[in-house]
């Protein structure tokens, strides 16, 4: 494997080329880690929900703590109206978290370091939230762009700004996750490369950096999954409880 820090993000085909019409949907290393992450989530939570003992064992405790953690996060940010979307936000958080965390294992592939993946998630959330908003409030949802208590003179400007900020939501959401993951992994790769190039004599400094960066990246992996989920909740809150 070449040592270019960007080669770790390369997608390559595993197995034969699969074509669906004109589209190439071959199984790649990205697909592999999507499958692995999903399977890991399903296995862990299936084990955690299998039997209900009064005193939960470790895996059951993990599942239940995650459940109440997400549940609390949703009810705190989006209120009780967001309950039907709990499963989606739970899956989203777990999927992003597990993809990020699997990326932390050496020689693995980080699914979330690809803009197309994060953008698809963010676009789906954006479209879904917009649809929910229009279903709940009809055209009254457009009042989201007209904040109350703004002088009439400033209103056209504010509305334009609000619309731009609303439309840039999927971009900011996806780029935040993608850029964080890519930057972190690139940095780790660069420091790893320094360790090799400086050898036994000077390699200790970048090595210690690398160790510290690994800890930081694990934190970032969790944090970005959390941020992704909580921003989804906030957008959902806008659609469910129109405050303007």
């Amino acid at each position, binding site marked *: 494997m*070449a*040592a*270019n*820090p*960007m*080669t770790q*993000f*390369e*997608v390559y*085909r595993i197995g034969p080329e699969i074509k*669906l019409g004109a*589209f*190439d*949907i*071959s*199984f*790649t290393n*990205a*697909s592999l880690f*999507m*499958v692995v*992450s*999903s399977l890991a*989530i*399903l296995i862990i*939570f*299936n084990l*955690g*929900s299998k039997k*209900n003992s*009064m005193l939960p064992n470790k895996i*059951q405790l993990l*599942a*239940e703590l995650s*459940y*109440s953690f997400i549940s609390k996060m949703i009810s705190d940010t989006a209120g009780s109206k967001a309950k039907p979307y*709990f*499963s*989606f936000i*739970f*899956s989203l958080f*777990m*999927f992003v978290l597990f993809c990020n965390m699997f990326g932390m294992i050496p020689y693995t592939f980080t*699914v979330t*370091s*690809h*803009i*197309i*993946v994060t953008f*698809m*998630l963010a676009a789906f959330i954006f479209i879904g939230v917009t649809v929910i908003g229009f279903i709940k409030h009809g055209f009254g949802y457009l009042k989201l762009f007209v904040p109350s208590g703004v002088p009439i003179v400033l209103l056209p400007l504010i509305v334009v700004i609000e619309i731009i900020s609303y439309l840039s939501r999927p971009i900011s959401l996806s780029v935040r996750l*993608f850029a964080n993951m*890519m930057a972190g992994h690139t940095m780790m790769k660069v420091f790893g*490369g320094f360790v*090799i*190039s*400086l*050898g036994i*004599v*000077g390699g200790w400094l970048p090595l210690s950096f690398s160790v510290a960066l690994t800890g930081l990246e694990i934190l970032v992996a969790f944090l970005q999954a959390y941020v992704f989920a909580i921003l989804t909740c906030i957008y959902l809150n806008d659609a469910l409880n129109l405050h303007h």
Partner: protein
Amino acid sequence: MIKKIFFQSIFFNFFFIKEVFPAESGGMPQLNPEFWISQIFWLTLTFGILYVVLSKLILPKISANLELRKSQIQENIEAAEKQRESSVSKIKEYDDIILKSKLQAKNIFKDAREKVLKDINLKKETLDKQIDEEIKKAEQEIYVLKKKAPEKINKIAIETSSEIVKKLIGADVNNSSISAIVDDLSKKNGNKYYGN
């Protein structure tokens, strides 16, 4: 010298970085659209399956487990509360019983004391009476004895003096004349000895 080699090795190492990180064309692989469709397809597939399985199978189970535990804990808390209340009432009952029995014991003690006191008083009275009677009897006896004492003494005195006179003189003396003298003397000194 060693220091120089050390720094040189670090410095020159940077010249080999190009070999470690060989320049490759293409830049960010993320912007290469070759596998975009594949990624979108697999993302939709895996995330869709994940969502369906989680929301239909796993999350309801976890939620039910949590609910069950919550209700069970609530039940246990309620049962504990009930038992606590019953124990409080039992303690109250117990206290009542103890209070009652204490009162009863006090009454019994009081009764017994009164009875005993009555008995003692009765016995004391009879004893006092008896003692009084005995004392009276004894006093009477003493009085009688006291009264009789001078006569006896006089008699003894008359007898002894007649004996003495007989031995001294050798002749019988008339008892009546001696008794007259003794009487006379006892009247003179009687008060000194008998106090009456």
